[in-house]
Each structure stands twice: as C-alpha cells, then as structure tokens.
C-alpha cells in the first residue's frame, strides 16, 4: 500500500517535445503517471512547437534561434518549465541563456515574442529527484524492483556545450534511484555513448554499429534490460539493434512508475520491439 505521500504538491509546466509526443507515447504516459504518484502536477505547455532538434542548428541558424524563442515566450510566469527530452532541454536552455547574456538578442526576442521572463526556470525531468524522496513514496522500497539487473543508459544527455558546463550533472541519478527501489545496477562502460540520433535514418550502418556496441557490452556485463532517459535513444536502441536474443529496453519512467505501484501500463509494452513482459514477469513485477 502506498504511504500518504510526504512530498508536497509541486506544479510544473511541461514541454514534451516531438520525440515523446509524436512517437514515444509510452514514455510520455509513464512520466505523467510517475509524477502523479510523487505528487507532481504537470501542465502541458500550451501550443508548444518543435525545439528545432539537430536539423535546425545544422542548416538554418535563424530558425534554430526562433523555434526555442517561441517556446520560451509561451511558458507561464511563476512556474518552472520542465523538459523531459535531453536534446530539447539543451536547445531551450541554451537559447534562454544566450538571450540573458546578449542585449541584442534580448531586444530581438522582445520585438518578436514579447516581454522576456528573467526568472523563468527551465529544468530537466531529473531535477525533481532533488526535491523528492523516492523511498518515502512507497512502502518497502528496497523490494520493489526485485533485484532486476539494469544497465542505465544516458546517451549524450550528460554532455553539454561548454557555455552550459556549470549546470548540474546528473551522472549517477538513474543508478541511485533504481538502486533505492531494489534494482541491481550493472556497470558496462558505455552508458554515456551517444545513440547516433538522426544517423539512424541517414547513416543506418553507423547507428547500428554504435547501438550494437552499447547493447552487447551491457549484455556481456550481465544486464537483463537497458534503461533509457531519452525517448530518441530508446527508439534507436530498439530499431537499430541487430543482436539476436537482445535484451529489452525500458524507459526510466516506465520502471519508476511500476516500482511505485502503477498498474495502468498495458498500453506501454506492446510498443516495445523486444517484449519486456517475460522479464518483468520473471522478476515478479507483473
């Protein structure tokens, strides 16, 4: 039974981004469900647009600047803006930082998008783990994940452009929280290697090599599943893996919600290429 939550209600406006909203629906749904279980309310940013992704800054720097600007202007005052996609996070936060630093850019922003909110806080989904105590959200936390052997995968999310180097580093966050819920953490040395993002489409061979390397190293180290923090990584690890009898790839948010007792997860697993159900059953999580 769930304890009455000790975490007081927190409210965020939420920027899902295209990877979550238009493809990784199981990731979005499990984030919402997990947040509800820890007393965090997410309000989707009204009418948000694409952050520009890799393509805008690759070929059109004006568009790469304008797309995040509009999103920043939509953020409601007095509420932190939460982003779940590491790539969107960099685009939004770096643009915000540049506007703050440059008078010229600020003027341009205000001409096009209105008053600039100096106090807007843009935070990643991982930020909430600093403010909540996972162990307090559930009874017998150490038994919840029943020693499932997980290999956490961060992809490139821990790497930032040098001008954002002094922000927070979340290295170890997945390990710490999954361990506190009873998982066994597998170290395999490839948890921070980029998944290849769009090379998956334009250079599938390169993406395949990168993905196979990550998954095979995790398997060699004894992992039963990989846990991802980014929807794009999840997609690439699933579609570009050519290893026979590969292990399932789960979203961090899926495993978290299940550990906290979320039962409404039937729609998540049919969307996975390697079916995680046999593993979850074997570990008594289903």
């Amino acid at each position, binding site marked *: 039974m769930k304890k009455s939550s000790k975490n007081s209600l927190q409210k965020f406006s939420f920027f899902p981004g295209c990877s979550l909203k238009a493809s990784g629906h199981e990731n979005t749904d499990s984030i919402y469900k997990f947040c509800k279980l820890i007393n965090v309310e997410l309000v989707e940013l009204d009418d948000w647009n694409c952050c520009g992704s*890799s*393509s805008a800054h690759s070929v059109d720097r*004006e568009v790469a600047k304008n797309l995040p600007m*509009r999103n920043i202007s939509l953020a409601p005052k007095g509420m932190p803006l939460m982003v779940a996609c590491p790539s969107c996070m960099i685009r939004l936060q770096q643009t915000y930082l540049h506007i703050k630093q440059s008078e010229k850019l600020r003027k341009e922003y205000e001409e096009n998008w209105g008053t600039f909110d100096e106090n807007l806080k843009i935070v990643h989904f991982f930020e909430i783990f600093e403010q909540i105590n996972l162990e307090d959200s559930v009874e017998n936390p150490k038994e919840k994940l029943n020693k499932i052997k997980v290999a956490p995968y961060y*992809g490139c999310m821990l790497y930032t452009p*040098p001008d954002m180097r002094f922000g927070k580093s979340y290295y170890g966050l997945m390990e710490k929280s999954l361990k506190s819920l009873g998982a066994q953490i597998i170290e395999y040395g490839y948890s*921070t290697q980029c998944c290849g993002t769009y090379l998956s*489409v334009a250079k599938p061979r*390169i993406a395949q090599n990168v993905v196979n390397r990550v998954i095979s190293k995790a398997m060699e180290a004894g992992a039963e599943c990989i846990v991802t923090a980014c929807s794009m990584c999840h997609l690439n690890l699933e579609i570009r893996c050519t290893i026979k009898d590969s292990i399932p790839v789960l979203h961090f948010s899926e495993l978290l919600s299940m550990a906290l007792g979320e039962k409404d997860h039937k729609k998540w697993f*049919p969307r996975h290429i390697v079916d995680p159900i046999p593993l979850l059953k074997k570990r008594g999580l289903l």
Partner: protein
Amino acid sequence: MIKLGHGHDKLSREIKKLSGINFNACLHCKCCTNACPFLEGMDYHPNQVIRLVQLGLEKKVLESSTIWVCVGCNTCCSHCPMAIDIPAVMDSLRQMALEQGVKIAEPDILNFHKEVLKTVEKYGRTHKLEIMMRYKLKKMDLLSDMGVGLKMLKKRKLDLTPSKIKEKASLEKIFKK
C-alpha cells in the same frame, strides 16, 4: 610540408566570427577525437577539422564528410580541456558550405535535415512518418531499410497523422526568409 598562402587565416577569422568560438586555443591533444563515437563515418577527425580551418584549407574542410556526420552530441567538447565548442564550429562550417554552394559530402544527411524542417514549417512539430517517406522518395530508395520501417509501424512508433500547433501565424515569423 604545407606552405601557407597569403591570407591563409581568412577562413579561421570568418569561422571564429560566425561561431563566436576561439578554436585557436586547441592543443590538438585529440581528446575530442578519442571521445567521438562516429569516427568511422568521418574523413577527418574532429581535431583535424580544426587544423584545416587554422591552415585555411577551405575547400578540403567545407567538402569534408565530418562536418555532416557530426551530430552535435557534445561528447567532444565535454572532453576538451580547453572547453572549445567544437559542435558550434561544425554548425558554422555547414552553414558556410551551404552558402558557398560547395559539393556536399553527405547529401543524404542534408536531405534529412531539410525534410525535418519542412514538416516543422508545415505543422510546427516534426512528423516522423512524413520525414522518412519523403527522405526515401528523394533518395529514390524505398526498399532498403523497409524491415525497420515496417517494424516501427507495427509497434506504432510512427504516428500516422502529424501533431500540429494551433497558432500557424507564428510559423511564418519563425521561418521568415
């Protein structure tokens, strides 16, 4: 031996101005290269790209595959002891390659970016299915990778209809030419 011509630093001055990055602090220690996961697709290593710019070898660097294969994952600059924003330098080199109309070493990657931006211009958000269909059509190659496409459809990883923004007018403002 490379003989530097008169005004060989023109390129490096231009890229420095475009990117705002002082890559002349580069020690050529190759930390970036050792960290990069995508070397197999590159003709020059990341630090070699910096060197080409420093030497003013414009055609070589603008026609290199490296500037397109780099996905901007920031692994290189996170390992750089001089904190040089190498992905930002790559952005500027791509921009210059497009402006000068040089031969693009990786046209598939450029086409992919263009298709992504087309759906963003139309809907305000990306639409993966349309991007992939149009990309494959343009490449005149619908069959390779078909298995992965079908797998994605079967597992409903590709939404059939695009997710759209309501306020279309702002898209004109964003994509003004």
